[in-house]
């Protein structure tokens, strides 16, 4: 007990080096069977370093403190009827998307890191994956706890795991993670630790959570920031992982670049849902999607890729398309959901006049020209009692699984269509990025479980859309779906607030 206190570097070295052992009687290749097939070459696992040098004792200590703080706030939120303090009942619909679309991804991340954490030959990498796996489990649990309060007062929260596995738009996030988890362990790390955590999740967890605070949602803001405090560690690891792979062997560079290209584009498509949450679903605005993209991707990501240039890594493919898309994507995504509001597990609405003015101000080059006229038409039709819901099932992009509603970025009046032929079948895509991803691995994507195809093949129950929604998705029709206007959510909100 009289030994002098170890410093951080020594403690970390003991954990990640001295806990490992040489294989004397077992075949190392059999112990780590997935380590080579992707073509990644590791010459020295001991070069793997967690820059935070987090050891297990420190990990448990600080995570426990985070949890105590977080649950104190959940208690306070529930005890003080925190749901009454949000800006507007519309806001809660963004949280429904979060619970059904994002929280299950935390669970997928937990499973994914538990898996790859077993598969790496280096102890440093295994420890990092183990911690991240536990973090992700914490995230899904805290998110369920936080949002269970809303489930007592609002529709659409009741069956989120079932919905995640079946509902058409939720196949977008689900298939993203299925794609990553069915890849090899190194691709998984580039997909999730690097492209998703380092390059993209800031856009979900930072400006959106600040927006939750700005809309009076103490519980969501707090779980978001608490999760993001782990993500800061994950992001840092993501960057270290990529540097590690690039420094291990020059043959790794083109493989890593290919994965960056793929997962950057997969991620931007996934984030189109967050884009519409930011621009259309937060009654009190913090920043526009375009501004968030500029700060968190163009500026932060730009700095990152400049830093990686010395390894021979360039900006992801199709990055120039995203420079144009930031002007359009949120408007096009919300329009898709407005058209299919009868088939969604949350409510839709037409932006108010003040919100449209805000959008004009934030999108001076595009909103008034392309998108305001649509909303004015929708408003007019609604006033005439002709609220229009698209009845035909949309064609989906085989890669991202989003309905083909995005346009050519140089002509926002023309829907973008791309296609590829593979073994006598034609496959459809929303963009050059999604087509490129398919063309790299067609044998993987031909197996995609596309919700619309499955409905038409009769694998989702009944013959009508209503039967699919009610019986297969388990939506409470008339309560979970359709516009917020006239919904039970809106009616209850008005009663609580004492307005007619």
């Amino acid at each position, binding site marked *: 007990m009289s030994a002098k206190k170890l410093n951080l570097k020594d403690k970390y070295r003991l954990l990640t080096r001295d806990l490992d052992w040489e294989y004397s009687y077992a075949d190392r290749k059999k112990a780590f069977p997935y380590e080579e097939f992707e073509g990644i070459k590791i010459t020295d696992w001991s070069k793997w370093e967690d820059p935070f040098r987090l050891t297990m004792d*420190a990990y448990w200590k600080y995570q426990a403190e985070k949890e105590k703080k977080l649950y104190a706030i959940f208690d306070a939120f529930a005890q003080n009827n925190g749901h009454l303090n949000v800006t507007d009942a519309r806001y809660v619909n963004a949280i429904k998307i979060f619970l059904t679309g994002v929280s299950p991804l935390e669970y997928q991340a937990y499973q994914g890191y538990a898996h790859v954490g077993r598969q790496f030959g280096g102890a440093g990498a295994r420890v990092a994956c183990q911690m991240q796996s536990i973090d992700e489990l914490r995230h899904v649990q805290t998110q369920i706890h936080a949002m269970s309060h809303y489930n007592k007062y609002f529709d659409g929260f009741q069956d989120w795991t079932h919905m995640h596995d079946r509902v058409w738009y939720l196949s977008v996030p689900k298939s993203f993670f299925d794609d990553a988890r069915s890849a090899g362990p190194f691709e998984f790390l580039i997909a999730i630790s690097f492209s998703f955590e380092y390059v993209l999740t800031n856009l979900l967890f*930072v400006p959106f959570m600040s927006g939750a605070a700005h809309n009076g949602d103490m519980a969501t803001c707090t779980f978001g*920031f608490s999760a993001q*405090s782990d993500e*800061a560690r994950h992001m840092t690891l993501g960057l270290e992982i990529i540097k590690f792979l690039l420094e291990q062997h020059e043959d790794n560079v083109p493989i890593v670049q290919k994965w960056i290209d793929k997962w950057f584009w997969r991620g931007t498509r996934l984030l189109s849902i967050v884009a519409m949450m930011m621009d259309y679903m937060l009654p009190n605005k*913090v920043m526009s999607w375009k501004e968030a993209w500029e700060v968190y991707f163009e500026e932060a990501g730009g*700095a990152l890729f400049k830093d990686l240039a010395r390894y021979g890594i360039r900006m992801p493919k199709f990055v120039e398309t995203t420079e144009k898309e930031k002007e359009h994507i949120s408007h096009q995504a919300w329009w898709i959901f407005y058209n299919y509001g009868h088939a969604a597990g949350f409510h839709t609405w037409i932006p108010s006049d003040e919100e449209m003015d805000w959008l004009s101000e934030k999108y001076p080059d595009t909103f008034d020209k392309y998108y305001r006229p649509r909303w004015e038409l929708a408003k007019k039709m609604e006033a005439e009692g002709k609220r229009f819901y698209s009845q035909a099932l949309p064609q989906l992009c085989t890669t991202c699984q989003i309905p083909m509603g995005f346009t050519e970025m140089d002509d926002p009046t023309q829907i973008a269509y791309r296609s590829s032929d593979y073994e006598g079948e034609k496959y459809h895509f929303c963009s050059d990025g999604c087509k490129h991803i398919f063309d790299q691995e067609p044998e993987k994507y031909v197996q995609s479980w596309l919700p619309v195809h499955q409905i038409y093949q009769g694998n989702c129950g009944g013959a009508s859309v209503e039967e699919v929604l009610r019986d297969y998705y388990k939506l409470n029709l008339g309560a979970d779906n359709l516009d917020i206007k006239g919904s039970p959510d809106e009616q209850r909100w008005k009663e609580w607030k004492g307005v007619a």
Partner: protein
Amino acid sequence: MSKVYIALQDNDESRYIIEAIEEDNPDATVIHHPAMIRIENENSLIVKRETVEEKMGRDWNVQELHLNLITLGGNVDEDDDQLSLSWNV
């Protein structure tokens, strides 16, 4: 030139950490958002244990930063005395 950044939850502890960062990085820019404070600087930023301890008036472990940390950008290096963020240029 590239910017590194760090964002902390807007709370009583972070206030002292921000004060320390401002003192040790006089050119850094502090930006207030709802519930969070973001500090950015050209190329590098340093959080020193000694300065934070002075502001807080108590012992402070650099790893405690994790409790209030929201996000950061840049290459991280942390030891017992400081956390630094930097880009290689």
